[in-house]
């Protein structure tokens, strides 16, 4: 297997594969179509400067929305953002110096007017991270009658000749339809020369139109991100060169699901350095959720969002690879084991090519025989250790000898007696926090969990007796 040419995926591609990020996107209140397009096209940021700037913008916007804008201002701004059309095709045509049609001229005029009124609101309120260019030249050109209304056609005031011909055309419309049609053709010729003239004059504004569109779209995204910060209680992450460390990290999607059932999500602390981390823990102790949360948080960080935790220091990576073993459609026709191994291979190849990866692997080699499985896990951990990548692997295998850090989910609380626990309330009896351990043994609670799931008693009893022998 060869390494595919490495490409940085944008937000659109990431939300296709990551349900957590999709959930974040679904909860973002972006008002405009250009805003939505802007976010979709955002690249996964991997330069400290880019992330720093975006996070500073966001911090500024949170403060600006909170302290400088009244509710009426926000409504006003949203109303205008909502009216924005996606005019990138028109701007591309303008860039190619094509002649624009009435619909395109309308789009540009409407955009220039909206841009002006958004700029007015921002200026009045002292928004100063970026400014919008003055487009009054565009408005003058496309609003010859100075009505200030967002509507457009080839106005009679563009040409005296056109104005006269139109009058005659209307007078003859009923009496002499054939003549009226001839005059109309003549009018169309004049209109075309006006379109050409307008299009040519607009070329010099193309750059500013594009910049303003980008900035307004960006502003829309920043406002949406800032609302999300309050809604989900996100925190501003710090950029760290070496380690990733979360205090009270949580998964917004699962937290909201639990909240619907009046349950609480237990946030946990975790830190990752350059040693691979092996996480063990009983079934249903939240190991997979933890991996999903780490992936989501890393993605949010590198798309310039605040992250779901109380405090966070995060190391920038070139890519996040999450191997949960549920992406069946990607490698169709392969067994789950084959899929997983190809995923792992992808991580190793990227590591060897010098990429910095956050690799999150759920129960590596669980679908093959335990002896070989254990050997594969050990080998993978050793390679990750060698390349000093942030790697988190969950496993049920004991006796992994490779050099790594070991964390264990505390699991079922000591005092909890099995009788009271059921599949419905197991959440209340589980302690999801992580403890650092030195030995390579693993918790043995599979039979207990199976019992809680209230399965056939014969299965439980027989399993116990086999375990005893």
């Amino acid at each position, binding site marked *: 297997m060869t390494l595919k040419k490495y490409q940085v995926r944008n937000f659109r591609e990431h939300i296709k594969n990551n349900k957590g990020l999709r959930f974040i996107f679904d909860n973002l209140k972006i008002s405009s179509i250009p805003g939505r397009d802007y976010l979709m096209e955002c690249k996964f940021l991997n330069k400290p400067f880019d992330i720093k700037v975006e996070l500073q913008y966001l911090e500024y916007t949170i403060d600006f929305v909170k302290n400088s804008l009244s509710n009426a201002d926000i409504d006003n701004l949203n109303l205008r953002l909502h009216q924005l059309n996606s005019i990138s095709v028109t701007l591309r045509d303008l860039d190619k110096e094509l002649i624009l049609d009435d*619909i395109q001229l309308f*789009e540009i005029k409407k955009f220039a007017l909206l841009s002006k009124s958004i700029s007015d609101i921002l200026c009045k309120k002292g928004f100063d991270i970026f400014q919008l260019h003055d487009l009054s030249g565009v408005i003058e050109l496309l609003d010859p009658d100075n009505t200030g209304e*967002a*509507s457009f056609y080839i106005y009679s005031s563009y040409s005296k000749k056109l104005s006269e011909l*139109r009058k005659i055309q*209307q007078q003859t419309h009923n009496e002499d339809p054939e003549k009226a049609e001839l005059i109309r053709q003549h009018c169309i010729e004049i209109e075309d020369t006006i379109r050409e003239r307008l299009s040519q004059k607009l070329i010099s504004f193309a750059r500013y139109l594009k910049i303003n569109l980008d900035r307004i779209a960006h502003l829309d995204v920043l406002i949406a991100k800032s609302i999300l910060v309050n809604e989900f209680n996100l925190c501003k992450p710090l950029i760290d060169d070496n380690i990733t460390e979360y205090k009270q990290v949580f998964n917004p999607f699962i937290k909201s699901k639990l909240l619907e059932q009046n349950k609480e999500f237990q946030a946990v602390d975790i830190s990752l350095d350059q040693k691979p981390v092996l996480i063990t823990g009983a079934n249903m102790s939240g190991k997979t959720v933890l991996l999903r949360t780490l992936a989501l948080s890393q993605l949010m960080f590198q798309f310039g969002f605040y992250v779901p935790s109380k405090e966070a220091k995060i190391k920038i990576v070139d890519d996040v690879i999450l191997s949960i073993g549920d992406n069946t459609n990607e490698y169709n026709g392969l067994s789950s084991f084959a899929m997983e191994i190809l995923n792992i291979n992808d991580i190793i190849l990227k590591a060897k090519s010098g990429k910095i990866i956050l690799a999150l692997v759920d129960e590596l080699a669980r679908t093959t025989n335990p002896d070989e499985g254990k050997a594969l896990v050990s080998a993978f951990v050793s390679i990750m250790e060698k390349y000093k990548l942030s790697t988190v692997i969950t496993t049920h295998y004991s006796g992994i000898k490779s050099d790594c850090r070991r964390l264990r989910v505390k699991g079922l609380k000591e005092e909890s007696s099995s009788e009271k626990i059921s599949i419905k309330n197991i959440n209340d009896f589980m302690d999801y926090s992580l403890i650092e351990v030195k030995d390579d043994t693993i918790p043995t609670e599979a039979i207990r969990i199976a019992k809680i799931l209230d399965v056939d008693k014969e299965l439980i009893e027989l399993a116990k007796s086999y375990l005893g022998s």
Partner: protein
Amino acid sequence: MPFIDDILKHKSLSIVGTEKNTGKTVCLNYILKRLVEKNKIPAITSIGIDGESLDQVTNTQKPEIELNYNSIFVTSEKHFATKSIDAEILDVSNRKTSLGRLITARAKSKGKLIFSGPPETVWLKEVIKDLTLYKPDIVLVDGALSRKSFGSPSVTDSMILTTGAALSANMQTLVKKTAYLYDLIKLKQWKSDIADTLLGIESGLWAIDDSNNIHDLNIPSVFLLDKAVDNLLEYGNRLFISGVINDKILDKLRIQANIDKTEIIVRDFTRIFAGQNSLNSFLDKGGKIKVLLKTNLMAVCVNPLAPNGFLLDSEKLRTLLNKKLNLPVYDIKKISSEEL
């Protein structure tokens, strides 16, 4: 000058033909002309992509609609480009139809235009609402009676139905078919908080339980009923059918035990493709059919001329229909020529 004053009492009106060539466009043009004389400003749109300049069924010329100065209209990008009228663009939709985005504009001259509009009901409702922002005296909708169209002409407050020899050259049959449509138009409305939700559903059969929860029955349409008839009444006796209903489902439900408690909800009268016999048997046994959108039929307009040249007696036809429907019936072509 009949019914123009009545029309103006409503905020919106759709004009719907029982068949192609029953004079829908003639009727619309007549109304537009009368509105001009009264100095009233209309806003006009159409359902879906009906408007081709050549009628594709009969290959007869489909007339464009004649608009006056200041009329507001919505049409697709494709038809906007072929207009022979000066128009000021007021808005461009972000969504696209198969003929491009929808353009809202104001006529700046007299001229002709082909109409196309939103292809589904919820969007059509939004367009009608947005048109009222320009303060027209009435919103007119060039309607369609097509099972292919997802747009419902019943979103308007009022309706005019056009019928004629194109529907049937036999006068008795014509009257009977038109009367049946009128019966369907008069079906009672199902009023509920979830009506708008149901309008947004574009396919499938759904059960609505007593607490107004909607359950997907996993039956894509009544044409695929055979496999799943057992599950039909799983959640109670109220069904929402997003597509059309046909004889088959009515016959199937009629023979069930609790037929007298059974209630079928459809989007509007245009979704009923069941024959008169099946429908009557269903209703006679106590079954109910209700619509989400109900409109007020104001008048019927007739075109006694069939596309093949066959001509019915206009006066006799009008008398018969008027007696049967108890509604005003007009022959627009005749009125127009008399007024000239």
